[in-house]
């Protein structure tokens, strides 16, 4: 970004340099001062609805001859605005003087607070937001502390379900309009609005509920307890939660999240600011899909005796594994894991199978393919001037990428970053911004949500799209949407091609064509991996080069399977399953080892951009559950081996030796690192990725299935 020219603003006597175009409120925060605000939100347009951010402000003026007008002392005379100004919608100008501490400002802010509280029910003791409420905090800091209002307060619906996942308490709403603006500006769905006006105003939708995929975000940004997460409602007070900053691994985007646990149970997930990945947004799957974590969890190993499972200690489990593996040669053993494990677990697996001397190792689901073209980041997507989506139902496969594309449609204006963080009120963001629909082309066999926002779109088989596109790029004529998409790519300066499962499942051919298209049009490419750590794990030798992949499991005599949702029916050997619940696969096991979910692990995951992101363990009690490193350690012990990687420390060291990156020292927003060579292998039906936002694992929870209604199945690529 070219640095815009800078201006000087004087806040409470302190001079501060800010880029031209900065809002007064951002200048105030940049100067290290504070004003209360409710309606402004970093990624939404400033609208000046709440009037809490009042300041006194003035500017110097010039005489007709161009000289500054001076006061008696010969200083530049400051002409103050006649009234307190809302600093969020006031642009700072060079030489502007802002006062945030004067008596006038204090009175104006306290007066506004009194208005805001007139109709507020003040039911903090029973409000989920209590203790983490902007209104509560600001009322304490800036209010009068007493109310002069002696009449009946407004009464309205207190448990109004906008959807199964979001409940509205109409009495608590302070009409800041964040939620209304969110839906129009971020997912581009105008489904929520003010109904009635004045004291009667309430938020509602008459579209028959909130649309799915991105509705939960309004519960994060509501500054009061009006919009609440209906999965976490009444499950804990904010100060009782253990907050853990970690990363969502429900898909390959890797959104930054905070996991809130209470008494050892995971109760809530909220979005965490990461301007480079998810800004502050999450998809509904990532946010509400967690109840399975506490549903029927295995907390200790199980051993099958006479066809029945009995609880056991790890020592007994190891002994049972030793017996089971007795007489099985390394060539007859296999190790198979789900592809959402951490990089640490991955490298431990790689080292372990080398030590054991078996070629039978695999992670699933995965796409066995490599795209030989420059990789796009999510910021590239948000700031592209042309995007062609091929074979991806983005809102389902990698939901937050959808939101970054929506940002591109608005012209790719990203809020400026200041020392204090993301701009609170970037004045370039406005309501109902123009959408450059002509910059987006979408191809998928069926209609997706993205078809509705793109000017260029077609329901087409992905390979066909690639072939036609490639021939147009090479000078032939195909007509229709393809022709338009090719022209779009050709005329763009920063084009990005996004490839989804419908392309990737087809193998290398499609990818080679895609690479050809990308290279001929100077486009960057963003392929969506089959599982959350697909990119990281593809850099490790944990795919079968000569050995058995998952579909050949039946040819083996013994196997360890970690959290896979399906394995071949014909396997009849000795089976150790590492799982969080007693699934259909686990029921077939001889020994079940209890597994940690990714919310309980420490480690590193690599998102679709190749960004290394940290996982931190939330305070969830899961008994004797352990990660894959420990599970492999148990197998090693059963084989009388000493596993080469036995913990975090040794895994981190191995990663450092291997990739030259210190994963113990990653910045908060993660870091894109070139992990080098990619290992490739053929795929089978066991590698079909889940392409729906709701994952099979999440749907183990009865509570979640109830909310989704009826029989809900996770979508798997065909």
């Amino acid at each position, binding site marked *: 970004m070219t640095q815009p020219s800078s201006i000087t603003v004087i806040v409470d006597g302190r001079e501060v340099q800010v880029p031209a175009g900065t809002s007064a409120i951002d200048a105030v925060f940049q100067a290290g001062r504070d004003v209360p605000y409710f309606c402004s939100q970093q990624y939404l347009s400033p609208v000046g609805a709440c009037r809490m951010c009042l300041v006194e402000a003035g500017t110097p003026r010039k005489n007709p001859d161009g000289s500054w007008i001076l006061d008696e002392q010969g200083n530049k005379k400051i002409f103050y605005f006649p009234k307190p100004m809302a600093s969020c919608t006031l642009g700072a100008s060079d030489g502007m003087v802002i006062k945030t501490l004067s008596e006038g400002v204090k009175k104006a802010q306290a007066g506004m607070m009194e208005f805001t509280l007139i109709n507020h029910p003040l039911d903090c003791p029973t409000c989920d937001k209590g203790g983490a409420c902007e209104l509560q905090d600001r009322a304490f800091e800036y209010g009068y502390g007493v109310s002069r209002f002696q009449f009946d307060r407004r009464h309205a619906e207190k448990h109004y379900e906008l959807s199964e996942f979001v409940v509205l308490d109409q009495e608590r709403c302070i009409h800041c309009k964040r939620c209304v603006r969110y839906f129009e500006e971020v997912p581009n*769905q*105008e*489904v*929520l*609005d*003010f*109904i*009635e*006006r004045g004291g009667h105003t309430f938020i*509602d*939708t*008459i*579209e028959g509920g909130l649309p799915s995929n991105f509705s939960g975000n309004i519960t994060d940004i509501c500054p009061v307890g009006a919009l609440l997460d209906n999965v976490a409602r009444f499950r804990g007070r904010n100060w009782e939660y253990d907050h853990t900053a970690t990363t969502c691994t429900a898909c390959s985007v890797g959104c930054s999240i905070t996991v809130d646990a209470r008494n050892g149970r995971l109760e809530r997930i909220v979005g965490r600011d990461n301007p480079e990945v998810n800004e502050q947004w999450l998809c509904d799957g990532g946010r509400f899909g967690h109840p399975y974590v506490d549903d029927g969890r295995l907390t200790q190993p199980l051993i099958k005796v006479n066809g029945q499972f009995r609880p056991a200690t790890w020592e007994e489990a190891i002994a049972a594994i030793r017996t089971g593996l007795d007489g099985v040669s390394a060539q007859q053993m296999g190790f198979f894991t789900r592809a959402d494990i951490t990089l640490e677990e991955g490298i431990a697996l790689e080292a372990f199978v080398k030590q054991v001397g078996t070629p039978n190792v695999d992670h699933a689901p995965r796409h066995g393919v490599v795209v030989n073209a420059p990789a796009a980041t999510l910021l590239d997507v948000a700031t592209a001037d042309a995007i062609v989506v091929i074979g991806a139902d983005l809102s389902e496969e990698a939901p937050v990428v959808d939101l970054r594309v929506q940002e591109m449609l608005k012209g790719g204006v990203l809020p400026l970053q200041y020392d204090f963080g993301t701009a609170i009120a970037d004045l370039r963001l406005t309501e*109902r911004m*123009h*959408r450059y629909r002509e910059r987006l082309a979408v191809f998928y066999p069926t209609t997706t949500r993205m078809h509705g926002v793109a000017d260029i779109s077609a329901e087409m088989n992905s390979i066909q799209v690639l072939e036609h596109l490639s021939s147009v790029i090479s000078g032939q004529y195909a007509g229709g949407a393809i022709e338009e998409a090719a022209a779009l790519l050709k005329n763009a300066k920063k084009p990005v091609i996004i490839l989804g499962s419908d392309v990737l499942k087809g193998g290398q051919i499609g990818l080679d064509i895609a690479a050809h298209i990308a290279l001929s049009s100077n486009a960057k490419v963003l392929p969506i991996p089959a599982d959350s750590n697909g990119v990281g794990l593809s850099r490790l030798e944990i795919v079968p080069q000569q050995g058995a992949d998952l579909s050949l499991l039946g040819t083996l005599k013994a196997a360890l399977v970690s959290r896979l949702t399906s394995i071949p029916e014909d396997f009849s050997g000795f089976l150790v399953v590492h799982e969080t619940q007693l699934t259909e696969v686990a029921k077939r096991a001889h020994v079940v080892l209890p597994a940690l979910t990714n919310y309980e692990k420490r480690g590193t995951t690599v998102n679709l951009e190749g960004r290394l992101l940290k996982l931190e363990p939330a305070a969830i009690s899961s008994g004797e559950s352990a990660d894959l490193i420990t599970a492999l350690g148990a197998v090693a012990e059963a084989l009388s081996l000493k596993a080469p990687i036995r913990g975090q420390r040794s895994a981190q060291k191995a990663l450092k030796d291997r990739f030259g990156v210190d994963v113990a020292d990653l910045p908060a927003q993660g870091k894109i690192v070139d992990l080098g060579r990619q290992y490739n292998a053929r795929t089978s039906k066991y590698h079909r990725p889940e392409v729906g936002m709701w994952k099979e694992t999440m749907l183990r929870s009865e509570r979640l299935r109830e909310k989704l209604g009826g029989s809900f199945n996770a979508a798997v690529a065909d």
Partner: protein
Amino acid sequence: MRYFADKQDVVQDIFSRYPDTERGRRSALMPLLREVQNAFGYVPEENIEEIASLLGNTATEVKSVMSFYSTYHTIPTGKHHLQVCATLSCAIAGSDELWDHLVDTLGIQQGEITKDGLFSIQKVECLGSCGTAPMLQINDEGYHECVSKKRIKLLLDQFRRGEPFNPDILPPIPIHAGQQELENGLPAGGLATTLPSLVEGEA
């Protein structure tokens, strides 16, 4: 019921007044609502959706704009919709009593219609006729000023017999066929063609 299905000319006419862009088209919201309300006396739910689809936006948004104005009704109104001013001057001059009297004589509350379908009542804010308080407006047809119980009786009786009852004054700016008119029938603000252009060099 789709109201505009057979009224393409009306729709075309309304859209022709606004820029033919995604955002420009949204401005047609108000006149479209007005068309429906004039036809039915209120805007039914299904027509909110119809208008939304004509404009290419959501029903929620149409409802939001509509609910801003007390002049759009979401529930049916009587043939004669009595709008009683309840703001300060009228309140001092007895609009509360006038309201209670209407409620008693008609046997309805706000939001209801008399059994014969003739009357409905609504409290509204100042209509700018404070000097002749208390006052009420009937439909869009005009003001009845300094209203007494006696005058109410005359008025209701005459309406019940199906006879016209002339208002004291017409509303300040009546609208006919989309054009605001003065009392003398001339277009309010003059005709666009008789005004000098703001753009230099253009006639």
